[in-house]
């Protein structure tokens, strides 16, 4: 059972940590397309997998956000990764499993998963 007391415990734990997630220019932004096309193609579980994996790994430099239609609806679910001083990487036709791998490979180890990028798919 999850109770309000559990939530208060989470808050106390977070307050005791010095480094809360903050949006300075150096953060990695991970953006999921969440318009009708993305949602119908399965973007919700992809987003949830990203949020969960980023939380589990305590990646304080990563911010997961949502956007509207990216414009290539047939390649949804689409995940874009923005890193300072690097070119944007666009992952296409994602699923939750791929999303978790993206976190470990790209966000943790710094290796772009080329095979899933829009460049490889087109």
């Amino acid at each position, binding site marked *: 059972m999850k109770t309000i007391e559990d*939530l208060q415990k989470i808050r106390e734990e977070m307050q005791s940590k010095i480094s809360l997630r903050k949006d300075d220019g150096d953060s990695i932004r991970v953006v999921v397309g969440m318009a009708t096309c993305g949602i*119908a193609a399965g973007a*919700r579980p992809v987003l949830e997998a990203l949020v969960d994996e980023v939380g*589990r790994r305590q990646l304080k430099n990563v911010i997961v*956000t949502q956007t509207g239609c990216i414009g290539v609806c047939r390649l949804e679910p689409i995940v874009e990764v923005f890193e300072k001083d690097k070119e944007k990487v666009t992952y296409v036709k994602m699923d939750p499993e791929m999303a978790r791998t993206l976190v470990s490979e790209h966000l943790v180890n710094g290796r772009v998963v080329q095979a899933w990028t829009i460049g490889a798919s087109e």
Partner: protein
Amino acid sequence: MKELSLNVLDLAQNSLSAGARHITIEICESEEKDSLHIRIVDDGAGMDPDFLKRVTDPFVTTRTTRPVGMGIPLIKMAAEMADGQFSIQSRKGEGTELNASFRLSHVDRMPIGDIAGTVTTLIQGAPEVDFIYIRRTDSGSFEFDTGQIRGLMEGISLREPEVLGWIREYIAQGEAGVMAQEV
């Protein structure tokens, strides 16, 4: 859309695009009345009467990437396929209310699906907005209000993964509580 919770997510995203600060999502299901009712109310920008008249037409949209918008046509179709109805009321500057009804036992009625996932996703996308989610069944009701949760968090964003994880489970468990008699 494979489940109605995805339509709800899509439609509530429209509310966010319209600048809503308060969004209420209510799902009432009654086996006694054989009905399912989904209601979404926001205090966003609203629509003028002319746009409102055309909004169920797929070739009317505010998106700029292409001239087709399927969100409202899809929920209207889902409701009508299951002996139900769809309606939308809106006033410019005040907000919008959507209502979709379904015959609960209709063979073409899509499952409600993972509504906890939908509400969590909405909060993740707009942690500063007040979402109220109400689920009613014959055996009771469950209500979740992000305004109350935000007060408890003393400035910690609801977007933090640990908080979202708690919210997801809390809603799923609250829903299980009012669904208990169905098992």
